């Protein structure tokens, strides 16, 4: 990962601002919380780079996102394990014959296209993320010479948003095609799962679209490059995770039935 250049001094100056909101609280001091507890030394500068000021907030948000993604992963693991259980379940009919009602659902081929679109969207999201951390530009932007990084990231994120919306539209088309073939949610155990998985994933992606929009707004409105980096970074990691998750879910639906 490219290094993040936001000199610690900015953060410190900003902190002074932050505590000075006119309500007469403690005088601005150099606050040293969140030092991550390594060692007993008082010397802030002995810490590894990643533990100092600006990077600290980024890594906090990132960690929060990752814990959240872990929860999302567990959600889908639960559903996928139910998928395997149900696929293997059957019952004995009146003639003591074992019947398994599972009939594989044919996957509309547009899903291949959707998958490709989602991969592309992840690539463009990654371009946005990287552009937020390109050293020279970040320096310029920090000094206030240009907003090149944010502009570039805005372009890439807009593309991601468009591709994401295209994916969701594509999923809609797939549901439509299945409905035209009279395959509905309640038709068969396998269609229960097809719809449950695709809809649950779409809901999560919808949250991602919301995050993209929030990040785009943040890129325009936020005054700090560090915060803009956080917006983009967190959104993009979430987006990647949803893409990766889709690859697994799609493989399951396409080959696992």
């Amino acid at each position, binding site marked *: 990962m490219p290094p993040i250049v936001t000199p610690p001094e900015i953060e410190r100056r900003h902190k002074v601002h932050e505590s000075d909101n006119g309500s007469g609280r403690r005088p601005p001091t150099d606050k040293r*919380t969140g030092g991550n507890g390594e060692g007993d030394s008082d010397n802030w500068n002995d810490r590894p780079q990643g533990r100092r000021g600006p990077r600290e907030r980024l890594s906090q948000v990132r960690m929060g996102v990752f814990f959240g993604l872990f929860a999302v992963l567990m959600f889908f693991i639960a559903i996928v394990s139910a998928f395997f259980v149900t696929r293997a379940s059957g019952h004995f009919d009146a003639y003591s014959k074992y019947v398994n009602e599972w009939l594989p659902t044919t996957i509309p081929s547009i899903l291949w296209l959707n998958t490709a679109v989602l991969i592309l969207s992840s690539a463009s999201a990654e371009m946005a993320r990287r552009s937020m951390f390109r050293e020279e530009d970040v320096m310029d932007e920090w000094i206030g010479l240009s907003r090149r990084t944010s502009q570039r990231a805005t372009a890439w994120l807009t593309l991601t948003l468009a591709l994401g919306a295209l994916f969701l539209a594509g999923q809609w088309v797939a549901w439509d095609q299945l409905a035209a073939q009279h395959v509905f949610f309640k038709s068969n155990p396998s269609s229960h799962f097809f719809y449950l998985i695709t809809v649950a994933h779409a809901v999560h992606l919808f949250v991602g679209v919301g995050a993209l929009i929030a990040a785009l707004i943040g890129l325009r409105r936020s005054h700090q490059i560090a915060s803009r980096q956080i917006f983009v970074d967190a959104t993009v990691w979430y987006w990647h995770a949803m893409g990766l998750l889709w690859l697994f879910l799609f493989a399951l639906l396409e080959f696992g039935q």
Partner: protein
Amino acid sequence: MNVSPATSVALAPHSRWTHHRTVGFGYLAISAVAVGVGTVLSLLMRLHLSWPAWSLPLHGPILPEEYLGLVTMHGTLMLFFVLTVAPQSGFGNLILPAQIGARHMAFPRLNAASMWLTGLALLVLLTAFFVPGGSPISGWTAYPPLSATALAGPGQGEGMDVWLAAIALFSVASTLGAINTLTTIVKLRGEGMSWPRLPLTVWGWFTAALLSVLAFSVLLAALAMLFCDRHLQSSFFVPGGDLVNGVLLQHRGDGSPLLWLHLFWFFGHPEVYIAILPGMGLTSMVLANFAHRRVFAYRLMIATTLLIGLLGILVWGHHMFVAGLNPFAGSAFALSSMAIALPASAKVLSWLATIWRSRPQLTTPMLFALGFVSLFITGGLTGPILAQPILDEYLHNTFFVVAHFHLIMAMAGVFGLFCATYYWFPLLFGKMLSERLGKLHFWGTILGAYATFLPMHLTGLAGEPRQYAQLTGVPGPAGQLLQTTLPLQNHITYGALFLACAQLPFFLNLVLTLRSRLRASQNPWSATTMEWAPQAADELATHRDPCHYAEDGVLFLGQWEPDATSELPPE
């Protein structure tokens, strides 16, 4: 000042509504409402069991479906909204940041949002009393197929839908809260607060938060599938050709109720540890505090906390021995369940070793911590018994199980909460709760707890089933067997009433203390953990492990104190 969205992320900790103290008290308020309602429900159940013909004023006799509604709502309120919310989210927010030397939680707004979401979940749940058909009747575990269709009983229509919505909201809120807790502990520890120096309470919160992230989303998935079964005619959990109340369910496929049990208990067992782990951590710290000792085998206690968390994920099948689980799987789950007794016993041994021959100060928080140990042992002894599939075949769904989990989870959890309240009251309100009323409260509560829940072992062994609305008037030998338990039933009911009344000194204490003008000293318990440091968090650094006491038991060194005085032996 121009506040952009980004700066307000940083500013958020200063806003009153997102301050972790506000959020913590908000959570405690939610729990207070839940515990009040839940207690009333439990007393109604007891009165009905003892005197089935008794009619509730303004309501009339309690019908069987109403009794089951009481059971469901009592369990749901207590387990989710009291034992999960108060120790983990309530005291977690109030104390955790100070205890790790941080000024705030990692994501204050998210934190406030999850508190309000939890409150909303409680509101939604409470509406279940008022919807047509009344509250759901399938217990806090909501087993299908009876929870999958409105045909199963009066509360299983809208009442069950409301229940599902409430628990879904609760799951989301708890997951968000846990993400916040975890990030705070990993990233916001103050200067010098390295992992091994974290107080065991923090380790308890940390492990419980890990379990929450893992378990609640599995529950959410199960709830979503149950919702589909109820309203979209899917058959995740509904077996093919299922007849409920004489009606054939029109669902396609061969769903499996056992699948729900797997998903539910994969959540459910970690959930009971989420409820107890913070209390275990607090007990260790409070015992050491008042015994003026180090915690015995501190590092090992950190390890056992994590190990209990880990093993807790692997034992869910012990709730399903008689549900049609493969017997080989049953043996595996029996083994893993017994394995968890090892770290649990190590904890008990450490508690005992910490206070062994220490001449502890028997303050009220100390008494409640000792009560926690006592209840944990009494309730824990029945765990490995229930974990034998062959014994569980008889004991499952009897009051023996009710006795087990009320002692080890409900009562121990509540003792943990009281311990926390008495211990941290000076920190939170600057005043000391009265010791005299506190001791009265303790002795009444522990007596009531044992008087209520110990006899349940006996009625359970005699065969009294759980969740039966009425024990009298059952025909045949089963009825005669139940008849023999009736004297004990009445004893239990009186015990429960006594237990409820034993809380009066506590409320009196709260009122009197809050009205009095006596201020507590800054660190009245001679505590050594960071939340008692005299300085503000900004100027703090951690310099050592918790619980440094001199041999004479008077002098102590807080974690915040820069260097050791000569009286104390070095680390």
